[in-house]
């Protein structure tokens, strides 16, 4: 693991702006991006990722790598929460364990974007269908989390709140951010199929503006993450360890799966990043509604306060070196 790629990653504008945001909190600057401006950027990024992904999928068509990759992605988002749950149960009750585990099974779109930016700066190619994997990995983890609560929870949960399967599917598939990402993907796909001039006209908005908007949003994420970090102290060292260990562990599994799928280095990194990243949008929103017994500060502070910065700043280059070192091995 060289130090150079990490430094190169840190010196890219998105990461620099993230650090600026974080430092502003540490130095107690009153820099603030008031609500709902961050929402504007998060909606924009989801819309743009989805739209561009849909176009790419339509362009590349369903090559014979697409289906295995997407299936593996879904599988990972089903398996990771189970592993996470088993680990977390050593210390936490069913509710908190399920909620945190679901967050780590799901993904962080901004971490994914950052990995794409990293690849672009390194001039490493990747495929548009990986956005499909991004979109498909959000919901299954939520479903697993809620099923874990449904079957492992103590029997004395208030009756009126029994989770029916329909409620579980609703929260996992119709959650605002999942819905926007998925449907923008479809819009991109349909537009690319039937209306190529529409793509050209969208390009300045979804394409050219993207990098700058990403920087602006990461500025805010830096502020939020740094505000969250101190709250982790209350959560205890077990959870702090988990927030660093779990992404590394997931990345490790991810690399071997990527190797098994014979993904190129670009796609492999994105796959690994999806495994390693944890959700702070869709999953917390869903868990707040369906598992109010879980402490939101646990699943938010870990994902947003520690795992997210870790991935953004040093995780991605580490995963890249994992990919470069493990995938080319002739055989297991």
């Amino acid at each position, binding site marked *: 693991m060289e130090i150079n790629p990490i430094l190169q990653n840190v010196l890219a504008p998105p990461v620099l702006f993230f650090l600026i945001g974080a430092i502003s909190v540490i130095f107690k600057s009153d820099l603030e991006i008031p*609500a709902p401006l961050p929402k504007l950027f*998060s909606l924009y990024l989801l819309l743009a990722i989805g739209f561009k992904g849909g176009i790419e999928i339509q362009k590349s068509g369903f090559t014979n790598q697409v289906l295995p990759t997407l299936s593996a992605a879904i599988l990972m988002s089903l398996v990771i929460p189970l592993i996470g749950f088993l680990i977390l149960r050593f210390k936490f009750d069913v509710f908190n364990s399920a909620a945190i585990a679901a967050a780590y099974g799901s993904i962080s779109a901004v971490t994914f974007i950052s990995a794409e930016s990293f690849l672009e700066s390194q001039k490493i190619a990747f495929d548009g269908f990986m956005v499909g994997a991004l979109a498909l990995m959000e919901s299954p983890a939520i479903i697993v989390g809620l099923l874990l609560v449904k079957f492992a929870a103590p029997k004395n949960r208030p009756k009126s709140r029994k989770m029916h399967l329909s409620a579980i599917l609703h929260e996992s598939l119709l959650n605002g951010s999942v819905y926007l990402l998925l449907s923008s993907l479809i819009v991109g796909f349909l537009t690319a199929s039937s209306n190529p001039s529409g793509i050209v006209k969208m390009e300045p908005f979804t394409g050219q503006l993207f990098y700058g908007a990403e920087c602006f949003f990461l500025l*805010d994420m830096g502020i939020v993450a740094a*505000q969250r970090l101190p709250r982790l102290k209350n959560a205890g060292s077990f959870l702090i360890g988990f927030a660093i260990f779990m992404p590394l562990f997931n990345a490790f599994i991810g690399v071997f799966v990527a190797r098994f799928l014979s993904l190129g280095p670009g796609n492999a990194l994105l796959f690994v990043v999806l495994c390693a990243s944890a959700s702070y*949008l*869709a999953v917390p*929103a869903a868990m707040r509604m369906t598992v109010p017994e879980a*402490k*939101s500060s646990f699943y938010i502070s870990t994902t947003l306060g520690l795992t997210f910065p870790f991935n953004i700043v040093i995780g991605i280059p580490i995963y890249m070196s994992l990919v470069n070192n493990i995938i080319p091995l002739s055989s297991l």
Partner: protein
Amino acid sequence: MIFSERELDAIIKTLEKANVPGYTVMKHATGRGPERVVTEDMEFTGLGANAHVIVFCEQELIDKMRDNIRDDLSYYGGVAYISEATPL
């Protein structure tokens, strides 16, 4: 006076069922309760902030909806207090 959050729809349904003459909602409230901290910076995540709901109504109406509201609040968190108020 009530404090609630994303279960706003449920609470409003309760209010409507009780036939309150009206209500006012102020969203984007934040705060700390015995169980949860809600901060503005998380609003973009979809976690939502709190909602502050004010209802001016007769005592009987309050009695009618007390149980339903208590139920909602005990599950999702939130507080509800009553003050005397006379119309201007």
